[in-house]
C-alpha cells in the first residue's frame, strides 16, 4: 500500500466558534485499519475536532482541510458525511422521545448502508449478535432513543450503532467517560469488532488511558490548546498516565502554532 491512501486526512485545520479560535492547525492522517487516539485535558479542543469532522453547524472552519478517502468532507452536509462513512459516537447522545430504538436503527442502516442492508435475516442476525456482544437485552429495541437511558446504556447504544452502521471512520468522543471497568471492556470489545481486521479506521478521543488498554491504538496524539504537541505509540498513554500533561505544556508548543507550522510529523 502506498503512503497516500489515507483514510482520513486532516490538514492544517483551524476552527473556532463565534470568532474564538479553538483549533490552531491540526494535522492527522489515519490509514485504513488504523486506530488513533487523541488525548488531552478538558477544553483542549478534542470534542470540537470530533464535531467539526462530523459537521456541527456551530463551528466555523477558518483554514485547512478534512478529507475522507480523498473526498472533501467540509463541503458536505452532516448526513452526507455520515453516508460517506463517518460515524461519531457522541459524548452526550441526544434523547428523541417517541422514536423507538429498533425503528431508528433500521432507518439509520437503510440511510447509510441501503434499504437492502436494513431488512431480512442478515440484518436481524447482525442486530442480535451485536446486542449480545454488548450485553443489551431485546426489550431495549422498544425503548425510545436515549430517553431515560443511564450513562452506560447511552454509551452501549452508541457502540451498537457503530457496529451496525459499519462506518469507514469511527470517531469516539469520550466513549469511556462515565463507564465502569466492565463497561469499558464491553465497549472496547465492540470497537475492536467493528474496526480490527477491516479497512475502517477509528479516532478515539479520551482524557484517560483506561480504554486504550483494551483498544490498542496505533498512534496517540496529544492535544493542548488546539494543537497537537506530541505524537507517539501506545506507550505514550502510559507516560501520560504517570506524568500528566504538564511536561508537554510549555510555551514552545504555542509559538509554533502561531506560525502555522506543523509541530509533529505523523506519517512515516
Amino acid at each position, binding site marked *: 500500500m502506498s503512503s497516500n491512501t489515507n483514510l482520513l486526512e486532516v490538514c492544517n485545520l483551524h476552527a473556532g466558534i463565534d470568532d474564538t479560535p479553538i483549533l490552531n492547525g491540526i494535522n492527522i492522517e489515519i490509514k485504513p485499519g488504523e486506530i488513533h487516539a487523541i488525548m488531552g485535558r478538558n477544553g483542549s479542543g478534542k470534542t470540537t475536532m470530533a464535531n467539526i469532522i*462530523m*459537521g*456541527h*453547524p*456551530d463551528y466555523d472552519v477558518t483554514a485547512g482541510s478534512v478529507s475522507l478517502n480523498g473526498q472533501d468532507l467540509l463541503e458536505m*452536509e*452532516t*448526513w452526507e*458525511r*455520515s*453516508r460517506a462513512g*463517518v*460515524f*461519531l459516537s*457522541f459524548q*452526550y*447522545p*441526544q*434523547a*428523541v*422521545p*417517541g*422514536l*423507538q430504538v429498533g425503528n*431508528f436503527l433500521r*432507518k*439509520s442502516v437503510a*440511510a*447509510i448502508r441501503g434499504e437492502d442492508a436494513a431488512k431480512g435475516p442478515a440484518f436481524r442476525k447482525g442486530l442480535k449478535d451485536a446486542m449480545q456482544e454488548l450485553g443489551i437485552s431485546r426489550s431495549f429495541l422498544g425503548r*425510545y*432513543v436515549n430517553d431515560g437511558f443511564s450513562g452506560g446504556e447511552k454509551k452501549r447504544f452508541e457502540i451498537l*450503532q457503530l457496529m451496525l*452502521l459499519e462506518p469507514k471512520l469511527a470517531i469516539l468522543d469520550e466513549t469511556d467517560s462515565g463507564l465502569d471497568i466492565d463497561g469499558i471492556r464491553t465497549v472496547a470489545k465492540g470497537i475492536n469488532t467493528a474496526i480490527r481486521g477491516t479497512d475502517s479506521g477509528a479516532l478515539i478521543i479520551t482524557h484517560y488511558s483506561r480504554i486504550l488498554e483494551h483498544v490498542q491504538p496505533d498512534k496517540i496524539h496529544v492535544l493542548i490548546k488546539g494543537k497537537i504537541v506530541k505524537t507517539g505509540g501506545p506507550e505514550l498513554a502510559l507516560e501520560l498516565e504517570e506524568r500528566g500533561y504538564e511536561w508537554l505544556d510549555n510555551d514552545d508548543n504555542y509559538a509554533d502554532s502561531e506560525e502555522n507550522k506543523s509541530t509533529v510529523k505523523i506519517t512515516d
Partner: protein
Amino acid sequence: MTNTNQDAREVIGDYKAGWHDPENATIRFDFGLSEQVVRDISALKNEPKWMTDIRVKAFHHYESRPMPTWGNMSMLKQIDFDSICYFLRSSKATENNWDDVPEDIRNTFDKLGIPAAEQKWLSGVTAQYESEAVYHSIREDLEKQGVIFLDMDSGLREYPEIIKKWFCSVVPYSDNKFAALNTAVWSGGSFLYIPKGVHVEMPVQAYFRINAKNMGQFERTLIIADEGSSIHYVEGCTAPTYSTDSLHSAVVELIALPGAHIRYSTVQNWSVNVYNLVTKRGIAHENSKIEWVDGNIGSKLTMKYPSVILKGKGSHAEVISVAYAGKGQHQDTGAKIHHLADNTTSTILSKSISKDGGRGSYRGMVTVSPKAKGCKTNVVCDALILDEASRSDTYPTMEVANQSARCEHEASVSKVSDDQLFYLMSRGHTESESLAMIVNGFFEPFTRELPMEYAVELNKLMAFEMEGSIG
C-alpha cells in the same frame, strides 16, 4: 383533469388530498341560510314532524346566539355564512356496492384508499360526500348480532324511535352556536347501535369528503353502546384546496351504557380553507369508558374540545389529542371532562406542534362536582414549537369542588434543538427526515393508539409537512 384544477393547484401547495372532482350535483341549494332552507332540507328527507320542529327551533337559537367570544374571534368573523351552500346531494342513493357509486366519486374514495382499507381491516364503512353518504356497508356477521351501523339519514328512517330518544340528549342544540347550526341543517353522519354484550373487534370507519367550493358539511353522529358492549369508531376527512372557505360543523353524541367501551378516533386533515367547528361529547354511565383519540392536522381554524360527562360511578374518560398548526392555521383544541359520580377517573394528554407561523392552543376544562367522591384526573399538555414565528398557548381550567379528588396537571413547551438534529443527521438522515423523526416521536403517544394503517398514514403526513421546512 378539469380546467378548474389549474387555479386549485396554485393554492394547493403540499396538501396531497387537495384535488377536486367536477361537480355533478343532483340537488344543490342556493347559498345562504333561512328557515325555509332548514324546512326544505327536512322536507327533502321526508322527516317526521318532530325532527323538523327541532331543526326550526335550533335555527332560531342559532340566529339569536352571538358568536363565541373566545377561540379565534378574528378568524371566526371572517366566515361568510351567506356564501355557504348548506345542502348538496351528489348521488341519488347510498349504495352498498362501490361499483354503483358515481365514477368520479368512487375514484376519489379509491385515491383516498377507503375501499382497500375496508377489505383489509374494517367492520363497516360509511363514505360521505358533500351532504350525504354515497356508500355504506357493514359486515354481515355484525348485522346478525344486531349491530346497527347506518348513515344518520337512513337511521332516522329506519329507527326513528331510538333516534328520537337520544338525539340532542348529549349535546342539546342550545349548547353553543355551532351545535345549533348543526341541529338545524344536519345531514349525513353515522348512526351506530351496539347491542348488549357485543364486542365489535375491528373498527368501523366513516370518511367525510367535501368536494364543492364554499360547501357546508354538517354531519350528525350518534353512537349508543349498550351495556357491556364495545366499539372502535374511526373517522377521517379531507377536502379540496380552494381560495374560498368551506365550513364543517359536526355534532357527535356518544352514549356508553353501563360497562360499555367506546373509542372514537379521528384524523382530521381538512384542507386549509376549511373552518372546522365541531362539538363532540359523550355520556359515560356506570363503569363504562369513553376514549377520544383526536388528531387535527388540517383545517384553517379548528375549535374542538371532545368532552365526556362521567355520570355513572366508576366510569372513565380518556382524551388523547394532537394538533399540528402550520402556516395560516390555528388549532384551538383540547378536552372537557365533568366528574359527576364517585370514583370516576380521567386522563387528558394533549400535544401540539406549531410551525411556519401556525398557532396551537390547548383549551381544557376538568370539573369535579361536590358530590363526587374519590375522583382522579391527570392532565398533560405538551407543545413543540418549531420556529420563532409560531405560537402555542395553554388555557387549562380545573374546578374541583370535592376535597377527596386527586388532580394532576403538567404542561411543557419545547423546541427542537440543533444538537438533537445534529445527532440524527449524523446517522445519515437529512434535516427534514430528522425533523420528521422528532415530530413523529413527539406524536407517538397518540399514533400508537391509532389503528396501524392510520398511524402509518399520519407519520407519512407529518414527514411530508417537514419536507423543505428548514435549512
